[in-house]
């Protein structure tokens, strides 16, 4: 029986009056690759930010390695964070450092290995993401896709037990997408790393995922509408899930506003009353 690495219970987050996450509950077990799917703006990244402790929930609980994060002191949080790596959507590299220094940063700051070994590890991690020879360039001098890969190399620099990835393959070419997917697979299957990946790239989601959740849109925004293994999600009866997986323009998530709503949004409620369609 695998132990739960992440347990999220009834997570609710409100920004002002807007409820972005509304009662999220799920569990990630050791060795799983959990895919979080959903349309743009449905709260995927917000959910991830709560799990890594950047944002605090309005209510509900998040446990990582069996420990509640909301009540942790900053020191305990730092200890926990050394056990996981986070790959940001746009890399979030430090612009003032070179690519190599960025990858070396977690090693220099959070471990006591000497410079020669750090150098070696940096080269190995950059080789993993296909960026050997780019150590001395600044993040501004490489492309967006390369920055993302450097971000991934930095996330795995300390060989974390838990890897978070925010859209690791968006903006990458198909070959590089496959390389990153294969890398995630290697890390999770061979090294038993647990991964949580936010993506809306369906090919890559079904390639690497062992569990999936999907967040709803519209009326069901901020709730989980599908949960299960890739096969269960692929055969899910919910039409919104099917629309999303197959990438159809119209369905339960409408392409455009209904004509009445459209007129109203253009003219305002009062003036739109007398309009004939």
């Amino acid at each position: 029986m695998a132990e739960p690495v992440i347990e999220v219970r009834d997570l609710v987050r409100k920004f002002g009056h807007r409820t972005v996450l509304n009662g999220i509950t799920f569990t990630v077990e050791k060795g799983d690759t959990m895919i979080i799917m959903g349309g743009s703006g449905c709260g995927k990244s917000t959910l991830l930010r709560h799990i890594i402790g950047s944002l605090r929930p309005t209510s509900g609980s998040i446990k990582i390695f069996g420990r509640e994060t909301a009540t942790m002191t900053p020191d305990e949080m730092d200890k926990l964070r050394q056990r996981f790596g986070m790959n940001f959507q746009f890399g979030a590299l430090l612009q003032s450092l070179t690519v190599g220094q960025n990858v070396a940063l977690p090693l220099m700051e959070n471990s006591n290995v000497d410079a020669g070994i750090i150098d070696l590890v940096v080269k190995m991690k950059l080789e993993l993401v296909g960026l050997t020879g780019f150590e001395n360039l600044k993040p501004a001098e490489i492309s967006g896709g390369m920055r993302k890969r450097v971000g991934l190399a930095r996330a795995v620099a300390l060989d974390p037990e838990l890897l978070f990835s925010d859209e690791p393959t968006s903006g990458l070419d198909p070959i590089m997408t496959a390389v990153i997917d294969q890398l995630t697979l290697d890390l999770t299957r061979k090294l038993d790393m647990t991964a949580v990946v936010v993506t809306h790239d369906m090919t890559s989601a079904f390639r690497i995922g062992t569990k999936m959740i999907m967040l709803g849109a519209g009326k069901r925004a901020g709730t989980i509408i599908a949960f299960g293994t890739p096969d269960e999600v692929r055969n899910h009866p919910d039409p919104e899930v099917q629309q999303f997986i197959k990438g159809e323009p119209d369905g339960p998530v409408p392409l455009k506003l209904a004509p009445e709503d459209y007129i109203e949004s253009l003219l305002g409620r009062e003036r739109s009353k007398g309009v004939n369609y």
Partner: protein
Amino acid sequence: MADLRNFFVLNAQILYWIFLAPFQGKRLVSLSQTFHHMVRIGVQAVPMAALTSFSIGLTLAMNGAHELARMGATSYVPDLVSMSILRELGPLLVGVVVIGRSGSAITAELGTMKVSEEIEALEVMAINPIRFLVVPRFLAMLVMLPVLTVFGNYIGFVGGWSICHFALNMDTNAYILRLISSAHPIDLYSGVIKSFVFAWLIATISSQAGLQVTGGAEGVGQSTTGSVVVSIIAMLVANALLTGFFFFALPTGS
């Protein structure tokens, strides 16, 4: 009000990372980073600080020569130059130069890092952004602003000398002797202490403004403008208070 509270929290955090954290087995503030910022804040500001101080020394001597000539007291021009520069204008002008060059840069850098998720990334990597980003800049400022001030003082004297020597035909030796005999140690010390206080204010105000940026490039611009304005006002107010303290409250004041 929340800004003011955050400002004091930031001050407390900076002091914690400098004085307390080393005794709790935490990672030390990076010396190489501190030196890096010392070069940027101090060494690279030398030409600008020199030009500003030279021109103000020049101006003071010209004004003084014009007024004192009417009383036939042009030999007091060095006194005027040394007093004004050591006590007030040296620290203030170098402070303004550093606010314009480095204070704004600190806000813009930290603000850009904030909006591009770099600061969040540091936190997630368990690297404290205050220790990693703010404290090196703070320490560099605290060391380099007084150093620049003393340097600026000397250049200001050279500016005064050039008027005294070329326009008033004063002997160089006489100028130097006059300068030395008229300046009291407290004039120099008060100026240097002032520049310490200015450095503290500039570093903390700029860092605070940078760390609280929201809303993309526009937010960075607004915060940078705000930090320059607030730094200058805070520096002038602190200057007035310190002048009052040194030359009225202290019994040894001349």
